[in-house]
């Protein structure tokens, strides 16, 4: 049914254009808070409807009669843009981009709803969030390196302003640190893109075309280029030891900024690895896979241990992101079908779960005026709805069976076991640590005796615009936790192509 509706509609371009139009309208006509809210809700809401349609219209599942699979990009569009350099605007999605494309408009829409009461410079606030959506959507659908890089960079500027204008006390430092770290990383990625482009004869930036040629390049070239990609994407994910910008950025960023940062921006790094680096440079990937595995496992364990020591609820959640993105890295490092599918699924899962966590921190900060665990305690009585949602989010994040992260992490553990055998004992330690820091933090901040520093009568429960987005996310977390196959099956086709390049599949 949805195939027919979307037939001939440039739906991916619409996904990029709609928030852009929304942002322009907000900047041009956003005279009152009401108009700003309505415009941004509409222009972030329509993309949600569109991705749902795309999800149902997406074709998947096995071979066609002539041996072709559904791994080719769907909803494909291509227009020449800078012929002198061989740049074209090419978009299309496959099973790897689909899950991330799904959560992009969803999380943006929910963060806009969550930010309902932002009254300082609302025009800029909502406009910037919409521009960020333009950039992130572009990254997940573009199939041309040059334009991909442009959209990759577009994301930075709104985020810089979100932290710099609406951030906490130390916002200047955090904003510039975020900008410089991620910009340097993207420039290194750009070097790798240039090298690929020239090595292939300087005629095209097309990802698919280069993906066909590049696996034939010399191993030395592949290792260097893959190393540059790994650095570029690894800083973005972020991986230890280049993760320090993330906690700073998160602590200072407003809640919507944190949700988008952890939910979507980090995914850009992982997505880049699996969309670009691994299939295009398979020999580089094979050579550097042990390094990836080590970085991933170190990130998982180190960040988890650091979480135990955090005093700030939000900083703890930020470090937990580093830990969970480490699973993605290790999953990819196995270079096996299960590991890659699970890595992509983990990004999807983490996007949903971490949004709930950051929203919880935002609500606590909003209503109690602090996020420091020591200064909280016993507020579950005043905030039952928040406590329920937050507990559900924490449980999802620590990998409770039946919720979405469990499926992803279980598959990653399985793939580690298949590839690296009993080394599995290292990452699996994190399960215990993760459960420890989440439950301990929950116990100290929400339950237990009321902290006498808190002015109890003043505190009330989460507002509707705060609890509704969290509720929706929890429902999805449960849905995809019980039926992960809905997503997993659609990822599979595209991963087969990646594996064929690696000579495995």
């Amino acid at each position, binding site marked *: 049914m949805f195939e027919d509706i979307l037939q001939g509609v440039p739906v991916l371009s619409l996904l990029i254009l709609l928030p852009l139009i929304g942002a322009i309208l907000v900047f041009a006509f956003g005279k009152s808070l009401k108009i700003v809210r309505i415009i941004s809700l509409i222009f972030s809401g329509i993309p949600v409807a569109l991705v749902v349609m795309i999800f149902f219209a997406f074709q998947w599942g096995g071979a066609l009669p002539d041996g072709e699979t559904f791994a080719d990009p769907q909803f494909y569009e291509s227009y020449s843009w*800078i012929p002198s350099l061989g740049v074209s605007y090419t978009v299309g999605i496959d099973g790897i981009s689909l899950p991330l494309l799904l959560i992009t408009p969803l999380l943006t829409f929910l963060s806009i709803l969550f930010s309902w009461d932002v009254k300082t410079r609302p025009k800029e606030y909502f406009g910037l969030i919409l521009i960020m959506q333009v950039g992130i959507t572009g990254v997940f659908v573009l199939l041309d390196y040059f334009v991909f890089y442009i959209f990759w960079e577009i994301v930075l500027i709104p985020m810089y*302003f979100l932290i710099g204008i609406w951030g906490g006390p130390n916002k200047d430092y955090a*904003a510039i640190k975020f900008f410089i770290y991620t910009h340097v990383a993207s420039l290194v990625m750009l070097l790798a893109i240039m090298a690929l482009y020239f090595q292939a004869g300087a005629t095209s930036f097309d990802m698919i075309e280069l993906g066909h040629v590049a696996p034939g390049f010399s191993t030395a070239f592949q290792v260097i280029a893959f190393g540059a990609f790994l650095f570029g994407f690894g800083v973005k994910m972020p991986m230890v030891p280049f993760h320090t910008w993330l906690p700073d950025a998160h602590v200072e960023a407003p809640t919507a900024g944190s949700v988008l940062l952890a939910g979507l921006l980090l995914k850009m790094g992982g997505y880049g690895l699996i969309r670009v680096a691994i299939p295009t440079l398979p020999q580089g990937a094979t050579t550097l896979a042990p390094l990836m595995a080590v970085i991933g496992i170190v990130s998982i364990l180190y960040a988890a241990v650091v979480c135990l020591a955090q005093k700030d609820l939000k900083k703890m959640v930020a470090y937990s992101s580093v830990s969970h993105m480490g699973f993605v890295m290790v999953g990819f490092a196995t270079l096996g079908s299960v590991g890659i599918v699970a890595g992509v699924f983990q990004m999807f899962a983490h996007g949903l779960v971490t949004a709930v966590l950051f929203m919880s921190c935002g609500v606590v900060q909003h209503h109690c005026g602090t996020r420091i665990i020591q200064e909280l305690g016993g507020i579950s009585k005043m905030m039952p709805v928040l406590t329920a949602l937050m507990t559900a989010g924490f449980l999802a994040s620590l990998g409770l069976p039946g919720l979405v992260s469990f499926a992803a992490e279980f598959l990653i553990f399985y793939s580690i076991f298949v590839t690296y055998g009993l080394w599995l004992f290292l990452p699996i330690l994190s399960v215990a640590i993760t459960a420890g820091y989440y439950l301990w933090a929950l116990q100290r901040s929400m339950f237990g005796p009321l902290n006498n520093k808190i002015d109890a009568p003043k505190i009330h429960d989460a507002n509707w615009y705060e609890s509704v987005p969290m509720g929706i996310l929890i429902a999805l977390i449960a849905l995809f936790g019980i039926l992960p196959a809905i997503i997993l099956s659609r990822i599979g086709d595209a991963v087969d192509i990646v594996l064929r390049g690696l000579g495995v599949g």
Partner: protein
Amino acid sequence: MTTTAEYFAVMSPQIILLIFALICPALDLWLKMRKGIAYWTLIGLAAVGIIETLALIPETRSLVSFLFWTDPPTTEVFQISAFSQLFTIVFIFVGGLVAYASPPYIRKEKHHGEYYALLLIAVTGMSFVASAADLIVIFVGLEIASISSYALTGFQKSVKRSTEAAMKYFIVGGFSSAITLFGISLVYGAGGSSNLAQLGTLVTVGGALEPIVILGIGMLIVGLGFKIAAVPFHMWAPDVYEGAPTTITALLAAGSKKMGVAAFFKLFLVALLAVKADWDVVISIVAVLTMTVGNLVAIQQESVKRMLAYSSIAQAGYILIAIPVATDYAVAGGILHVITHAAMKSGAFFVIVALTVVGLGETMKDFTGLNKRSPFLAFSMAIFVLSLAGIPPLAGFYSKFVLFSSAVFEASGAYSWLIWLAVAGILNSALSLFYYARIIKSMYVDKGESTERLPVPMSIKIVIAIALIATIVIGIYPEPFLSASLGAAEALNNLLPIGL
């Protein structure tokens, strides 16, 4: 042989500019309408701009000398090609913006006629350099433009730092001209011709006179290095840029400096290409030093005008990458950067012009909270500095992309060290973001003392808007500009006799 009519046809842009320039002072006496002279200047520039853009001459055409003592007598001295056209259009574009923005800025000064006359003469000199096919013509063009620039720099006679800047500029400029001329004479002596294309075949590796050529190359690098403010010959630039009237600073940064770049291209990529091994490493080191020192010092500046002056130094470093790489693609990147830099850097200086006109200063403090006082100025400035930092999709990104990627492309075999040019450029781009972000932060994030609206004159707003549109249009649709730059680079290459 060339007919007299053809001389006039080929040199018509320069002739028209000169006629308009000579009439300017007279207009000042008769008209008594200050804006009238600015419009007169604009008409002259527009006429030449139209000739250059519309009457595009498909093939390179040259003038054979009747002025110089060339032997054989058929050597070209003056040549119009895609290269000269593109550069002349850039100079005219910048000159036009300066002329249109000037009346409110210099309204308190006297002698408006001379101001516009000197402006037009400076543009004439710049286009001379772009069209030169002979060492002597290059030097004459450099001098025409430089001498008018000295006078323009000191135009605000009552302002102490303007006079000081003019003195400094004059002394350093005269010094560098002498060194350049010395270098030219050495190259001429070693090669036996003053024609660029002929020198391309005459000056070769291993000749008995190679030591003299190397000495000449050294002189040229120093002399022209002063002109484009390459490190370590940059000391004068920040003082002069800061002291000059800001409209003229825009001309110096976006015009005069680009003239030096054109001279660099012509001398090193045509006349001295055969001895590339003698200079490529030196120029690479100068390029890396220039961008690094420019950016590092810019970080510490409190005056935005001075910061932009240092950033201008850094940008010249990026352009210099094109010379050691020396492919058409690299030169196209250099030329594209000349175009994009003309738009974004002059735009940024015009924002300072606007602030000065409404009575604010040039320091970071004056930019604080600008977003509330003039959203247009703040937005334009943000776009200009983001473009200077090379953030896509703005104009500056593409030229930097082509420049840096050209170094990656050529980096193989004995030239694998070229990759470090790209690495240095990329690291510097990241470094520059640090101070550009400071400007944006103070405009948008910090709260200013006043939120009173700024009454910016319409003409300055229009000038900024034009630069802004250029920056954004090149960003969204770079293809025509890129292919024009490639065409210009090929034209430069075609100056050389076949076989090189």
